[in-house]
């Protein structure tokens, strides 16, 4: 007698569960957990990381992120409006800017602006935070410009028409009517952008920075050098997770709510 389709699917599901349990068991038995913990999660080294990893490195990562986000949002809004402008040179300038900074890896931009230009010209960054945050903001603004432009374009055309028919100028209508609605639409993608920025700040660790302005990644790397143990980087990774997971969950919640509202 032939097995029915649903029966077959049921057997397949059971087989997958069994295989997963076997694989998990094998891992637990084969791996030398004591040695692994000694090399990557040594408790006294974990404890040693605190509180500096939060009060200094974590704080610096947040400062870089917030500066990068604020700068990226302001310039991103500017470039989005330029891309939507009726003035052609504005459109060209914004489009070129966006292409350039989305096309060059952030690491290279960081090295050019943070290292290359100071070495070539003798000019020095007035502040180590700006050295990392300005290149970050320039790249972020290119990405955010496209997000913001999409948000503005998602506001129905009738909104601009209604505002203009009341005698508002184009810029007044943009500021009072269109942009507030566009920002509401793009809160989820902008939050994602913020999460990406948190992680991207780790690239700033390639720049030579003082002990007081080290970000999380640099803090972890220096910790590995001084302890000859991977634990500091693992702890740094966990601190990143503590910052990013709540935000991605927040975005997921906002998107679920949006989906429910539009049903």
């Amino acid at each position: 007698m032939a097995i029915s389709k649903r029966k077959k699917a049921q057997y397949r599901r059971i087989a997958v569960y069994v295989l997963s349990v076997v694989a998990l068991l094998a891992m637990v038995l084969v791996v030398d957990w004591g040695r692994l913990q000694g090399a990557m999660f040594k408790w006294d080294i974990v404890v040693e990381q605190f509180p500096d990893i939060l009060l200094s490195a974590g704080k610096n990562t947040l400062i870089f992120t917030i500066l990068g986000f604020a700068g990226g949002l302001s310039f991103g809004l500017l470039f989005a409006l330029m891309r939507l402008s009726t003035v052609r040179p504005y459109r060209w300038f914004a489009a070129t800017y966006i292409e350039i900074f989305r096309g060059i890896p952030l690491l290279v931009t960081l090295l050019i602006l943070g290292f290359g230009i100071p070495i070539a010209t003798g000019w020095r960054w007035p502040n180590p935070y700006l050295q990392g945050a300005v290149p970050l903001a320039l790249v972020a603004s290119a990405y955010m410009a496209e997000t913001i432009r999409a948000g503005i374009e998602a506001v129905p055309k009738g909104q601009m028409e209604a505002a203009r028919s009341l005698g508002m100028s184009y810029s007044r209508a943009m500021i009072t009517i269109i942009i507030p609605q566009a920002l509401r639409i793009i809160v989820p993608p902008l939050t994602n952008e913020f999460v990406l920025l948190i992680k991207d700040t780790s690239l700033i660790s390639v720049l030579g920075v003082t002990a007081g302005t080290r970000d999380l990644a640099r803090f972890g790397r220096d910790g590995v050098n001084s302890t000859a143990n991977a634990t500091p980087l693992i702890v740094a990774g966990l601190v990143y997770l503590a910052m990013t997971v709540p935000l991605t969950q927040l975005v997921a919640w906002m998107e679920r709510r949006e989906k429910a509202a539009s049903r």
Partner: protein
Amino acid sequence: MNSDVVVNITNLNKSFGDNHVLRGIDLQVQRGEVVCIIGPSGSGKSTLLRCVNMLETPTAGTVVVLGRDLTDIDCDIDEARAHIGMVFQQFNLFPHMTALENVCVAQRKVLKRSADEAAKIAHGLLARVGLVEKDNAYPAQLSGGQQQRVAIARALAMNPDVILFDEATSALDPELVGEVLQVMQSLAQEGMTMLVVTHEMGFAKGVADRVVFMDGGVIVEQGPPSQVISAPVEERTRAFLSSVLNH
């Protein structure tokens, strides 16, 4: 020029690419007059209305509103629009603002009224369109008919010399049409100058001083409703009316 002419349209032409939508429209609206524009869809009546406040830029011809030639490059279009109210088919209320804020925002930003004065006027106008205790409701919390009445109050708040109605009841459920038409009728009785694109023949017949029938981008026939609707001369007008009245 006669100072009682609020809107004076001369030889208006509008093309979208190869599509010649308006083919030489001449139309005058006197102060206090209610003019209904009727006609089949695609006849150009909405485009004509949108040319009156330059939401569409005419290809040729002139649109003079209150003595200002809006097609003149030196015309301050924002200033001119502040005197021309418009009510849209889709209401186009600002969804992030309450009913009161919708009626206040242009008073504040364009007319530079104080917050208190604007709120007082808005509150009065919302009551006038039959919306008491809805000041703090957001558009999403209002029915279509209520939203459209907020939109009318928003237009009235600017003390316009003329209001353009672009199929103001076409997006409404049938049972909500009456409340909006009632507000429009009371405005007409108070002497508001109105240019109304509509499919509501009953409204045109009962309220309009003049009915304009458009087809194919031209004005085919115009006159008092007793003539255009009850005893049309042109064959095209008759054909249109029989198609909308006998179904």
